[in-house]
């Protein structure tokens, strides 16, 4: 059980780190870049969801 808490903590750190970097650098993107990033982010979560569904989550 303790190991899952550590996993959760690590995942939260990763998400917050990526979120911070994205917030810092999204300012430099053009409007087209922001739109493409949004589309790819949506696609990434959609495919990740399908993958998790396929492995039985």
């Amino acid at each position, binding site marked *: 059980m303790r190991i899952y808490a550590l996993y959760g903590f690590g995942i939260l750190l990763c998400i917050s780190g990526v979120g911070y970097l*994205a917030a810092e*650098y999204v300012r430099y993107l053009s409007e087209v870049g922001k739109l493409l990033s949004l589309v790819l982010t949506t696609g990434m979560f959609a495919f990740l969801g399908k993958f998790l569904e396929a492995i039985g989550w």
Partner: protein
Amino acid sequence: MAGMGHTRYLYLGLALACFAGILSIFIVDGYLGVYDILYITYDEYERKIEFDNQWIPEGEGTYYGGEITFGKPAYFRYQIENRTFSSYEDRLTVSVWEGSNKLVDLVDKQVKITSFGSAAVEWALTSDKLATSVINEEYSNYTIRISSSSQERKIIFGYRARSTIPPPPPVPLK
């Protein structure tokens, strides 16, 4: 079941490809380009304006440079970073405007920057270069226009006259 396994890794591969695409957009679109930064120094205080890096863009591409006391010089350093694979060359002009009247030209210079290099242009603005209207008024706004062939940056700053009104005499106690 073998087909299910392939499908599951196809989803995972597509998710990773999307992630790699986002990263590449951030690197290519975010990092590459020509960026400019203006440093304004006055009254022992430095103000930094990153033109393409403002969280809240100011009205119609105009930025606020601060408030300068009349009589004190303001020093400007305009830094251009060329994050492209080709060299950057342009004519840079800097002038001070009050409304639609040009008051003074400060810089007229050809700038050439190598690939992934940077250059800085510096100038100073002293009160004697401005109109004398600020002496009669307590406060005046001026605009500095930094122009190149591709863009024009506008920075509004205020010039505040030193107060010449003597303080009121002390009221005698009755």
